[in-house]
C-alpha cells in the first residue's frame, strides 16, 4: 500500500502569513490573540480575537483579485491554497487533471457577509447584491475551483469545527482508494458576526486570552485562518520535498448533545482510537498531541478524560488555539500544518496562559517550546453535532 504524503503546505493565521512566520511565533510563544483592528462588531471592544492582520481589500490587492463577489473567506482560502499549490509545485496541467481533487471545509462559508446576506435573504431591496452566489457553505471551495481550474473531484465538508480535519481525512481516503492522485485539502473561515454572536449566546467566549487546559479557563477566543495541504500518493511525489505522511485518521460521533461533549468523552476517545487503528499503532507510540483544546469548560475536561481513558500515560500535548484563537472550520487544517511543523523541525510548541491543571483530570500541557524527537503526532478536532476527528501524521 503506497503511503499518503504531504508535498505542500500553506497557511495564514493571526500569527503569520506563511508556515515560517507561524513557526517563528509558535517558537517564541507569541500569541496572535488581541484587539481586532479590521473586523467590525459591537463585541470587538470587549472580546479579544485571533484576527489576520490584513484588511480584506489589501488581501485582494496582494492576491491580484478584482472580483467584487469574492468574500474575505474566499480570499483567505485563496491565499493559503496558492501557497500550498506553489509549494508542491503543481502545474496548471496538474490542477486541470481529472485525478486532482479539491476538498475544502468551512463553517461560515460566505455568511461572513452578515449584513449583505440579511438584505438579500429577506429580499429587502428589489435587486440583489453582488454576493448572491457567494453565501453558500461551499462558496470558498467553488471559488478556488474556478481560480485554479481544478478538473477532478470537488467537495466541501461542514461538520462545524472538525470540517477541515474531515476534509483531510476524506482526501487521504480518496488517495488510498485510487479515486484521486493528488488532493488539495484544507479549509478557511473568517471572523463573522454570525459566529461571534452564536458563541457569545452560548456564553463560551472568554473576555481574556484563552487558557487551554487551565482550571480557571473562561472559554474560547474566535480566530480566522486558512490552511491547505497538498497530499499525494508517494509514487506520484517522486523527487519532491515531502513534509510528512498522513498515517491515520478516525472519526466518531459523540451522540450526546448538539453543542457539548459527553462527560466520558466517548466521541473523542473513539476518534483517537480509530486513528490509531487505521495507522496500526499502539497508544504508546504517539509522541505528541495537538489537542482540540478550545479552553471551554466542557471541551478541555472531556478531551483530557478521553486521553486518560485511551493512553495509559497520555503523551505530551498542547493547544495552539492559545496562539490563533479557534479558527472553526479552518482549525483542523491549521493544526495539521502545525503538527507537520512539529515533525519537520522535531520540536513541540507550548500551550499559553496555563497555570493550574483541571482538578478532575490533572493533565498539564507542554509549557515551553523545546526540541524533541517525534515520530508520530496526533491532531484532534471536535465539532458541534458531536463530530470528532483525529488525524495522525508521521515523520517521513
Amino acid at each position: 500500500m503506497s503511503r499518503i504524503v504531504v508535498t505542500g503546505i500553506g497557511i495564514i493565521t493571526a500569527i503569520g502569513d506563511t508556515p515560517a512566520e507561524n513557526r517563528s511565533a509558535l517558537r517564541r510563544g507569541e500569541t496572535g490573540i488581541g484587539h481586532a483592528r479590521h473586523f467590525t462588531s459591537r463585541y470587538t471592544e470587549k472580546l479579544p480575537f485571533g484576527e489576520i492582520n490584513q484588511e480584506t481589500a489589501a488581501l485582494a490587492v496582494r492576491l491580484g483579485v478584482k472580483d467584487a463577489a469574492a468574500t474575505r473567506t474566499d480570499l483567505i482560502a485563496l491565499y493559503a491554497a496558492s501557497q500550498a499549490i506553489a509549494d508542491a509545485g503543481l502545474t496548471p496541467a496538474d490542477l486541470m487533471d481529472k485525478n486532482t481533487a479539491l476538498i475544502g471545509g468551512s463553517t461560515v462559508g460566505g455568511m461572513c457577509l452578515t449584513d449583505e446576506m440579511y438584505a438579500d435573504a429577506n429580499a429587502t431591496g428589489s435587486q440583489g447584491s453582488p454576493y448572491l452566489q457567494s453565501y453558500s457553505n461551499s462558496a470558498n471551495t467553488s471559488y478556488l475551483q474556478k481560480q485554479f481550474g481544478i478538473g477532478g473531484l470537488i467537495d466541501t465538508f461542514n461538520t462545524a469545527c472538525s470540517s477541515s480535519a474531515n476534509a483531510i481525512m476524506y482526501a487521504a481516503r480518496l488517495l488510498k482508494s485510487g479515486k484521486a492522485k493528488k488532493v488539495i485539502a484544507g479549509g478557511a473561515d473568517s471572523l463573522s458576526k454570525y459566529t461571534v454572536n452564536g458563541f457569545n449566546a452560548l456564553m463560551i467566549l472568554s473576555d481574556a486570552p484563552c487558557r487551554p487546559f487551565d482550571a480557571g479557563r473562561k472559554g474560547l477566543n474566535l480566530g480566522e485562518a486558512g490552511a491547505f495541504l497538498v497530499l499525494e500518493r508517494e509514487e506520484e511525489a517522486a523527487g519532491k520535498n515531502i513534509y510528512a505522511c498522513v498515517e491515520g485518521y478516525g472519526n466518531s460521533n459523540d451522540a450526546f448533545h448538539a453543542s457539548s461533549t459527553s462527560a466520558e468523552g466517548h466521541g473523542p476517545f473513539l476518534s483517537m482510537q480509530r486513528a490509531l487503528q487505521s495507522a496500526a499503532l499502539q497508544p504508546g507510540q504517539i509522541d505528541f498531541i495537538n489537542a482540540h483544546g478550545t479552553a471551554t469548560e466542557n471541551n478541555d475536561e472531556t478531551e483530557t478524560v478521553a486521553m486518560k481513558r485511551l493512553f495509559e500515560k497520555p503523551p505530551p500535548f498542547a493547544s495552539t488555539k492559545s496562539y490563533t484563537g479557534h479558527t472553526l472550520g479552518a482549525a483542523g487544517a491549521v493544526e495539521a500544518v502545525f503538527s507537520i511543523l512539529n515533525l519537520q523541525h522535531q520540536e513541540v510548541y507550548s500551550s499559553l496562559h496555563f497555570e493550574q491543571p483541571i482538578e478532575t483530570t490533572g493533565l498539564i500541557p507542554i509549557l515551553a517550546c523545546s526540541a524533541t524527537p517525534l515520530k508520530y503526532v496526533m491532531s484532534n478536532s471536535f465539532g458541534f453535532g458531536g463530530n470528532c476527528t483525529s488525524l495522525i501524521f508521521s515523520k517521513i
Partner: protein
Amino acid sequence: MYIHQHICISPQDTSDLVNPDNIRPSVEGKLIALEPALDGVPPGMLRRMSKAVRMGMGAGLPLLKSHTVDGIVIGTANGGMEDCIKFLNQIVDYEEGLLTPAHFVQSTPNAIAGLQSLLTQNRSYNATHVHQGLAFENALLDAGMLVAENPGKNILVGGVDEISTYNYNIDLLAGWYSKTKSNAHLFDAKTPHTIAGEGAAMFIVSDQAADAAGNLEQLEFFHSQDTATVTDRFRHFIADFVPVTDNTILISGENGDGRQLPLYVECEEALGSALPVVRYKHLSGEYPTASSFALWLACQALQQQGLPRHLFKNEHSLQAIDRVILYNQYQGKQHSFMLVSK
C-alpha cells in the same frame, strides 16, 4: 456499492411509485414536501427542528431502526438554512444584542447527521457534505469508500434540502426560480428559470449483492461551464462504463430552465435517439440534492422493472430495465453522472 432499502420524502406521495393521476401541483413556483409523522422524537426536540432536520429524521430514522449501520453520511447544501437566517436576522435586528443560542446550534448543516447519530446512539463515522449541487454525490462517494473499507457492514447515505424562505429569496434574486412556472407545464416552455423543490432520500448501502435494489456501479462529478467539456466527459463515461443494451434508460435532471436544456439534450443525443429518457423534476422540483430523488427513482425503475408512462419524455418499447444512467447538473456549473444496474 449495493443499494438496499430506501425511503424518499418529497412533494409527492413517494411511499410507492408516484401515481400519475395524483401529482401534487406546485404553488407559486414551489413544490413543498409532504412531512411524515416522526415517531420516537422527544416533543421538545421536535419543536426546535427545522424542516430539513425533520425530513432527514423522517427518511433516516426508520432505516436506522431496521438496520445497524457503521456510518452515517449526509449530503445537504443548505442544512439548517432556516435556522441560520433566523439567527442572522436576530443579529441584525437586535444589533448584536443578547440572543438565545437555539437557532445558532440548529443552524449547522451537520445537525441532521448529528441528530440521527444522537437519537440512535450511533457513534460510528459521521459526515456531512455540503458541496451544493454535488453534496449528495460526495456523500455517495464517501459511502462507497466506507463500504469498501468495511466489508459486510451497512452504511446510511442520504440527500436532504429544504426550501427556506431565505435561500429561496437569494436564488430568486439570482435568477434561478420563477414564481409563475408550474410543474404541470414545467418542460413546455424553453424560457429561463425553474421551480423550487425539497425533499430527503435515504439509502442503506453495503457490499452485499443479495436482495439489493440496485448496484451503483459508477459515479463521476465535476465543475465545468464549458458544454464541450461536459459532453466529452459524458461520452467517455458511456464508452468506458456502459455496455450497449436495449434495456437501458436515462434519468435526466431536465428542469424546465431553457438555459440548461442544451446540455441535457446533448447528453441524450450522445446516447442515441432511441434511448428512453425519464424526467422527474416536475415531481421533486429543483434543489441542490435533487439527484437523491433521481437515485430513488432509479431504484424503483430497477425493482419494478418499469416506470409510469408519464415520466417518459419519448416513446419507447421498453420491456425490461437492466441499467439506469443518470445525468444531473446544478445551475449550469456542477455535473454528475451515475450508472445504476440491476
